[in-house]
């Protein structure tokens, strides 16, 4: 009896010590991130994106400076924190990446295929989209997240996004909610934001896009969601599709009031 109790007490003490060791690991990783905060290579993408925004391109040889991101033609400042939103000209809700495709096809005259080409860049092939998104989002830094849900289609997009968030399926029974609906959870040492907790949702949403040090590229929200779905063992989302706009709306609304702080830097 006593032996068993002692063994159990020993095991508990050991478990406690190990929890302690892991807490210090996550603290150290926080320090690591702090050391990288100054001098984010994403600034290089922001610079290139601003250049691309102002450069005449496409068959129509016009810049994107007349693109309406929701605050009027050419207004970039503060546009991102009000996306996704309803656009009257297309009678639907669009997120930033869907809207950019729209502007590049309608203003610059690119085909849909051209405007969605290389959404995710690589060493061999830089992405125009990632640079444009880095520039546009950087122009909302310091502002509060305020995705609107006043229009019925905006509300509907939010509800559709919520349905996707909870959808369980595939070989592993995973939903977004499997990893992102409880506080204080981690995969390995990677902390998982609880999207149902406003503080977590804000922290997560306001730090995308991000320069991913593991990839050496700036990645957009769409890339983040694609990679979530990949790990969820789901098929691949179509770039700038309605489903992803809906899910993005769900995330953006949950992050309402958070101070936008991207492009950020992540592992």
């Amino acid at each position, binding site marked *: 009896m006593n032996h068993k109790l002692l063994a159990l007490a020993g095991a508990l003490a050991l478990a406690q010590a190990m929890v302690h060791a892991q807490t210090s690991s996550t603290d150290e990783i926080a320090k690591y991130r702090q050391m990288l905060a*100054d*001098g*984010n*290579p994403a*600034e*290089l993408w922001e*610079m*290139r994106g601003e250049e691309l925004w102002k450069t005449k391109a496409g068959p129509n040889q016009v810049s994107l400076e007349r693109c309406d991101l929701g605050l009027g033609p050419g207004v970039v400042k503060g546009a991102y924190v009000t996306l996704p939103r309803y656009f009257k000209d297309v009678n639907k809700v669009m997120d930033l990446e869907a809207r950019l495709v729209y502007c590049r096809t309608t203003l610059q005259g690119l085909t849909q295929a051209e405007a969605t080409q290389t959404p995710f860049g690589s*060493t061999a092939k830089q992405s125009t989209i990632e640079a444009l998104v880095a520039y546009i989002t950087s122009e909302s830094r310091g502002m509060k997240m305020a995705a609107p849900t006043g229009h019925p289609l905006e509300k509907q997009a939010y509800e559709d996004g919520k349905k996707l968030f909870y959808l369980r399926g595939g070989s592993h029974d995973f939903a977004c909610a499997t990893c992102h609906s409880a506080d204080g959870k981690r995969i390995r040492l990677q902390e998982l934001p609880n999207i149902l907790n406003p503080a977590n949702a804000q922290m997560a949403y306001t730090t995308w896009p991000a*320069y991913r*040090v593991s990839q*050496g590229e700036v990645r957009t929200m769409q890339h983040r969601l694609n990679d979530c779905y990949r790990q969820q063992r789901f098929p691949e989302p179509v770039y700038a599709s309605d489903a992803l706009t809906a899910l993005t709306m769900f995330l953006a609304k949950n992050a309402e009031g958070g101070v936008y702080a991207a492009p950020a830097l992540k592992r």
Partner: protein
Amino acid sequence: MGNPMRIRASLTGDTVEVKVLMRHDMETGLRKDAAGALIPALFIKNLVAKHKDKVVLDANFGPSVSKDPFLSFKFKGGAAGDKVSITWTDTAGDSRTDEASIT
């Protein structure tokens, strides 16, 4: 060649702090592409920082400096408005120079 650098040079007291971000892949020569073929080494090997015409830092990099390199250092003797220029040269002989004013 290459994308522009991001250079910040800020004066505090009599010291100028320079922070530079360079867009460069810094290929080690040890990485493989999707097809399994080795990607040849291609990295910045030299960087020279000048304040007006005076060299304030002369660096050599190996392939193990991170992709999109960041460098910060401090020197004395600069004044607001002075130009700081940075030149890098990579193993293929490509080179790029950018400059910024001290603020």
